[in-house]
């Protein structure tokens, strides 16, 4: 129940989408992923780093990601997440859906036309 509260700050599925998008560029481990998202959003999005992990588990379970133990650049034993083919397809779908939704919202919010 709590996890949904946290995500309501964004919207359901947003965090997952960002994770998929980030991992599409390159496989990363949890910490690096958090840093990437923070940097990419230029600190506009405030995410608890902890909430990243349930989202990662969900994506793993749905087989959109896979994970392998490896050694990070800072020489730590970390789990590196990678996008699967299914994940890539899912991302495309989600992004196009999101863009459509965004357009819709923009139209409604556009001034002067009502």
């Amino acid at each position, binding site marked *: 129940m*709590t996890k949904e509260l946290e995500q309501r700050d964004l919207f359901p599925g947003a965090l997952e989408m960002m994770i998929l998008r980030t991992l599409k560029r390159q496989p990363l481990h*949890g910490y690096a992923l958090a840093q990437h998202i923070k940097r990419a959003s230029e600190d506009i999005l405030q995410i*608890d*780093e*902890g909430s990243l992990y*349930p989202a*990662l*588990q969900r994506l793993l*379970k749905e087989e959109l990601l896979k994970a392998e133990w490896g050694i990070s650049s800072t020489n730590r034993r970390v789990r590196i997440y990678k996008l699967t083919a299914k994940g890539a397809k899912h991302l495309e779908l989600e992004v196009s859906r999101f863009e459509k939704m965004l357009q819709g919202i923009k139209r409604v919010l556009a001034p002067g036309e009502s």
Partner: protein
Amino acid sequence: MYWLKHLFSRKRLYSELAEEMREHLEETIGELVESGMSREEATHAARRKFGNITLAEEDCREMWRWPAIEDSFMDVRFGARMLRKNPGFTAVAVVTLALGIAVNITIFSAVNGWMLRRPRIEDPARVVVILTSDPAKEGWGWDRQPVSPFDFVAWREQSQSFEDMAASDRDDFVLTGGGEPERLSGMRVSANYFEVLGVSAAMGRTFLPGEDQPGRNGVVILSHGLWQRRFGSNPAVMGQVVRLNGEDFTVVGVMSNGYRIGVYGSPQLWTPIVFPPESLLPAARGNRSLEVMARLKSGATVDTAKAEMAALAKRSEQAYADKSKGIGATAMSIQHYIADEFGVGMRLQMGLVLFVLLIACVNVANLQLARGAERQREFAMRAALGASPFRMVRQLLVESLLIALAGGGLGLLLACWGVALFRTGLSSVGDVSPIAREVTIDHTVMIYTLGISALTAILFGLAPAVHQAQGLHSTLKEGGRAISQSKARQRTQSVLVTAEIALALVLVIATGVFAQEFLDRVHTSFGIDANQVLTADISLSSVGYKDPSKQAAFFQEAIQHLEALPGVTSAGATSNLPLGDYASTVTFSIEGRPVLSRTERAQTNYFAISPDYLRTLGIPLIRGRNFLSSDSAQAPPVALVNQELVQRYFPNEEPIGKRIRLDTSGLERTDWSEIVGVVGNVRDSFDQRKYAPQAYEPYPQKLSSLMTLVVRARTDPGAFAPTFRRAVWEVDKDQPITAVQTMNQVMAQSVNVTRLVNILIGTFAGLGLALAAVGVFAVIAYTVVQRTHEIGIRMALGARRSEVLRMVVKKGIVLAAVGGGSGLALGIPLVWLKLGMFNDDLLPFDQRGPVFLAAVFVVCLAALVASYIPARRATRVDPMVALRYE
């Protein structure tokens, strides 16, 4: 199936998650320290950035769970723990249920083996049995009559609904050569019989088309049992010639082990049937003996077949009006037909065992209620911690299910034993012994066990569970002794116990009624003096006795040989032995009365006897004369009748000198037989209490190739058997002698089936009564425990022990009275309405009074004893202890 894999490797998964997050924090801390923070500060900052670690971890774990199932696992684990913690309750509940379930499984395995299992033929759903109905026949089975050869041939040709139609007829065969001569029950079948059924031989072949034509019919198929027993399982028997009834038959096949259709369908051999030309004349249409089966054409259904058979019968009725008035025909699916043969009896047993199970369920429900009182606080606590009522009901139902499954498992074990006992019981009954081994515990029975266990769980678990969940709110507030709650609980318990007593009473009434019928039959005179009488069956079907005069000569000589033996008082022969396996009923006409068609004529039991038969069995001659040796085939035909026949058909007349005509064959007889004497009544089966009309003719005038010899000895007739055989073999050394037994044994056998039924019903009633008594005991005992405090106060205030005793026992009396009343209200109509289905010759209803009284007495006594024991305990309550009791 990713999640499934993880369901089992979750421990590792969770520790990996924890490690991963720890690393994440470490990495953050490391970076912050590098940027100049102190380690302590960095740790705090990292934690802040990460958020709630425990929550994140929990959320992650949740991702991998399947909540509905895992909660159930938890319920099961918890339930099992609760049951282990309370072994006394668990044991009593499980054993109670196991008993109830075991009797159900035992009876169901018979129902399954006989009625539900598909017959071992190809596509049984497409096979129907063709039956004729004869309104003139009395009682059950009038619409289950066989078919005459004449109709079979006609209908086979005319019908459109069937691929083909096959006929079979039971017959006895005498096998000679290679060992003692032996009489075997066999079946004559049309050549297409096995093809219609879609059954092939285990070895060799079945019959070929045309093998049921005269001259080509010298072929035989052996049953697996006969092949094993008589031919030592030797495959070389194929193609060999065996002698049956003095003729040569070539063995062409052996059927597979256990091949059987219907109740009595376990022949030891099959030969082709050849219809003698006279049986195909319209006049022989009344001679119905064939069991006819047919396979439906594609497109035809049982219903269309039914309609067509009805139309065909109508057509025959119009064509041969004098021979077939009122005779109809119908089709019935073979499985329905087989199930019907067992129908009434098995339904009765199923009903009774269901009562036992209900009583067991009520008992366990009561135990649950009592235990629920003790667990009140546990559940109140769970409710306070946020458990939903649904979740708690589920928890309780899961516990019930665990008890029920344990009970079902134990019940299955007990049922293995029960089935073995049941089979032993059946094997002792000649008629049904072949089907005993089909009572087995197979996978259908297992599934039934599972189903019935689950059902009982709901039956005994739901009410207590709902009770528990409803009464939650008051409990914590009351802080201890939940008085109002326990009132409602006690009310439910009382209702349940009342129901239990009522159910037990119905069972006891059923037992009483059956026992009453049984005893009445035992004590009604059989009309014969069975002591010191030895009997044996002789079948003269072999070829040497084709000539009737030779048969007569054989019996005459055999009787002479037997009479000449030292120690023999008299010897005789009869075509049918009263209480024996074969009974013969014929229609008859009285000279000078209006001529009736065959179906309208009166019926009588029929016996062809030798002159000394009546004396040998001790049947008294009331008036007139006995048969004499001068009543030969050439002499004018004569007959004897019993008192019952006189009473029914010559009420105010002198029967002696009147003439009757007995229809002893399919063809009309032209000769009348003069009644020369009146003899005593003889009961002809154990189940019939009333005497039936009986008529006798001298055997030389009406020969039967199958006779029973009876001998009255001066000493023990059992020891006399070898001498008996030798005397017969002196006449013909190849003559098989079967069923050598004393008349007392014959009578005992006729009692067997009924006795088995009585034992079964008695067992069920005993079990039900015991369970009900335990139930009463438990409830009263529980009341006493609940009221210990109150009783203590009463006694402290000066109540005497006898008063306390009375107070507690009073509750038992009220329960017994209400339960007994409703039991009577339930039981009497059941007995009245339903018992008639089982047997149409019952005691009049007004004689049942003593049985009902006795049943009520037994049940109430059991209830009283069950409440007296805990009541005694109540009087021993020490006021000091009771007042401190919390």
